[in-house]
């Protein structure tokens, strides 16, 4: 591979403290280097230069994403583009096909995306799709919280064995870390029921709170790059902000293995609700933001709403059922034996709806009220709160009070009574935007140590050059610039030029190998094998994801911390 020199750009590289300095970036053999000899020169004169974007939480691949595509041909008829000499065919808006997913992210300057929920039993499916997404480096978080093994070890208090199970599962699924979704509730959904944080899950005799605490402890027994990644109980229910706060408190005293959070809570917008029903529903973004401001053990991503039609999908089966009951639209459910579940239903976020209006406000409020941008990441929980191609809209909102005021006028008037939104004056700087779209996410995932999210020497040659001046204040122009880069460079190769995809190299899949003591593993496997013999519908020997599914691997070892 050759050399690239990006000249004269205005660089925002938060992990290296670079705040909009005119600076050249040199890349050789796919990595950032100090200097180059005979490079291809890209003149970025006066334009904004950032590391490749890192998405901490997005549903782009696997069983439920594809079920979403399959049952929404009406979504597939949107966003249709014919194949070109470079690109494969594209289709879909809220559930784009694999090719469109890669191209659209790359055009926004993103080069790494975390698939946020991988059912372990269907992990091969997630990997098959990840391989088919062009350009993007990727990873996936296996769901480990409603697993019978997890609950049994939490119940018996065998934290080392729980850690051994967690390690085995992350290895078996070629996963990246621990995903938690409605702990206990998804198991109870196996019987059509649900539970809250401190309810006892029958049969297994554990509470969701105990499950989350146990997994956090297990996670920190290894040098895991990422903390537990949490979608706590009662997502989307009025008044759930108390549960969210209690969830943070659960892990307050656990020491992280590395310099990072102990818990990342995702799509926090859906968990910051006040009121007792949809009638008196209100924003509690301020309470959640205050908690985050006062504590350092938890980070969030916002899960901001994009108005319009989308496809909601989560391992939180009971939540999707409630949503389907509200709308009466099509509803798919897929419970996964001994492990997890999922539900999918289409949803329209309308600015005319008081509830949707408050939801819309909350996501942005969280971003504006959390003081330290290193504690939050920009997401739309794609496609749950809206498709990822809405990120530039959110960016322009955060950067422009004027745009927010104008937008508020188009929303239901409840925004002036039951949201904090209109009273917030803060405007994000480009430096802060760079934090919440790459630096923070890379750090929270531990990927900054592996070349992601920054442009220091040794970093991956992943760069986004936006066609805008650092002085730009026009929200429309900001939005446009962030939707289609002037250049996106991935591993030193130009993949997007003037908003068009010009090359489609394969991305790498990052996975973590937690290194567990053999004796512990052996003891755990005896119990696990019994589960396969008696309860699983596949055999133990056919379970683990074979190497063939990860043709471009990047392994991160996570040693046991004695």
């Amino acid at each position, binding site marked *: 591979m050759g050399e690239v020199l990006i000249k004269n750009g205005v660089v925002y590289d938060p992990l290296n403290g670079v705040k909009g300095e005119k600076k050249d970036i040199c890349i050789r053999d796919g990595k950032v280097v100090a200097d180059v000899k005979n490079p291809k020169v890209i003149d970025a004169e006066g334009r904004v230069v950032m590391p490749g974007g890192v998405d901490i939480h997005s549903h782009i691949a696997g069983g439920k994403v594809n079920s979403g595509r399959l*049952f*929404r*041909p*009406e*979504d*597939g*008829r949107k966003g249709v583009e014919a194949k070109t000499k470079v690109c494969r065919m594209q289709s879909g808006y809220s559930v784009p096909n694999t090719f469109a997913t890669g191209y659209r992210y790359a055009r926004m300057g993103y080069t790494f995306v975390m698939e946020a929920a991988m059912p372990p039993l269907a992990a091969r499916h997630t990997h098959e799709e990840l391989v088919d997404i062009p350009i993007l480096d990727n990873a996936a978080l296996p769901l480990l919280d409603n697993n019978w093994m997890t609950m049994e070890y939490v119940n018996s208090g065998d934290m080392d064995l729980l850690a051994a199970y967690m390690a085995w599962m992350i290895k078996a699924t070629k996963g990246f870390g621990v995903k938690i979704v409605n702990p206990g509730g998804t198991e109870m959904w196996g019987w059509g029921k649900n539970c809250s944080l401190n309810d006892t899950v029958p049969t297994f005799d554990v509470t969701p709170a105990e499950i989350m605490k146990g997994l956090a402890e297990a996670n920190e027994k290894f040098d895991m790059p990422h903390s537990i990644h949490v979608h706590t109980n009662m997502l989307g229910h009025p008044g759930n902000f108390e549960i969210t706060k209690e969830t943070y408190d659960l892990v307050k005293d656990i020491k992280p293995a590395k310099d990072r959070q102990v818990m990342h809570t995702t799509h926090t917008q859906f968990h910051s609700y006040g009121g007792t029903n949809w009638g008196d529903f209100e924003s509690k973004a301020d309470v959640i933001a205050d908690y985050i401001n006062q504590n350092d053990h938890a980070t969030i991503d916002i899960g901001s709403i994009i108005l319009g039609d989308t496809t909601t999908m989560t391992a939180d089966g009971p939540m999707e059922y409630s949503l389907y009951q509200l709308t*009466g*639209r*099509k509803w798919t459910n897929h419970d996964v034996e001994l492990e997890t579940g999922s539900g999918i239903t289409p949803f329209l976020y309308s600015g005319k709806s008081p509830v949707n209006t408050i939801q819309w406000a909350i996501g942005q409020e969280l971003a504006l009220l959390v003081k330290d941008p290193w504690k939050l990441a920009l997401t739309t929980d794609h496609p749950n709160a809206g498709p990822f191609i809405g990120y530039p809209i959110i960016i322009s909102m955060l950067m422009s009070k004027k745009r927010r005021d104008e937008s508020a006028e188009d929303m239901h008037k409840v925004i002036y009574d039951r949201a904090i939104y209109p009273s917030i004056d803060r405007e994000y700087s480009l430096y802060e935007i760079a934090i919440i779209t790459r630096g923070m996410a890379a750090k929270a995932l531990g990927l900054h140590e592996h070349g992601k999210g920054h442009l220091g020497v040794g970093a991956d040659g992943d760069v986004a050059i936006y066609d805008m001046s650092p002085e730009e204040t026009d929200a429309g122009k900001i939005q446009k610039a962030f939707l289609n880069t002037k250049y996106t460079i991935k591993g030193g190769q130009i993949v997007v030029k003037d908003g068009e995809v010009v090359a489609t190299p394969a991305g790498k899949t990052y996975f973590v190998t937690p290194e567990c003591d053999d004796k512990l593993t052996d003891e755990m496997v005896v119990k696990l094998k019994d589960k396969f013999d008696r309860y699983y519908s596949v055999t133990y020997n056919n379970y683990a994801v074979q190497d063939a599914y990860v043709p471009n691997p990047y392994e991160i070892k996570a040693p046991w911390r004695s």
Partner: protein
Amino acid sequence: MQTIKLKLKSEVTSGVAKIPVEVDSLTPDKLFGKTEAEIKAVRVWWGNREENTGDLFDVSVDGTASSADDVKLVLDGDLSRVKRIGDGMKAGEIEANGDVDMHCGAMMNGGKITVTGNADCWAGREMHGGELIIDGDAAANLCAMYRGEMTGMTGGKVTVGGNADECVGQYMGGGEIVIKGNARMLAGLNMHGGKIVIEGDAVMPGADMTSGEITVKGTVQDMMPSFKLEGTESIDGAEYKKYSGDLAMTAKKAKGTLYVK
């Protein structure tokens, strides 16, 4: 008034395979203002290759038009493999002489289409406005939704001189459909607005309807077991049983009306 005549060349449909020609680029509103030479150069899909209209059709243009409303497109030749006639049409008139292939009048917004023969599946799919007249039979999914959508026809009027196949007006939200002959199974399936009149017989009409109105003037075979008899009513001098349904959608949603003799 301008008349544009397009006659499909016989060699297009004379091969072993009858490869369809798709003419969504040839609506009166899209052709308005074009010269004959320009019309001949409009690209149409014939299988997986794009061709010039003039290479597939004999083209002639008579008169001038001051707006798309003044444009009349006359289609002749073997049209049984010509798809998407009047697809997305906004104004003007189309006269299709003979049997036409699928998606005739799909997503139509305005203007008028007359088919002198039969129309294959999805005629009037997702139609929003205008008028579609099919002198012969209509194949399945007349005025229905596209796959996965929850809305089919929302406006306009469709008249079928002959019979209609399955699922007439599925997910219909508005507009009017008149079938002079019989309708096969599940006319008005998932209907939530608008009106369907079937002058002949019907099979399982009105299943899963939540609003709108269906009248069957002939006999009904396999009446849905989930409709409630509300009483009788006289329409145009004839006595009809009035049913509400479909209770299989729950009582809250069962706001459809079905008149059966």
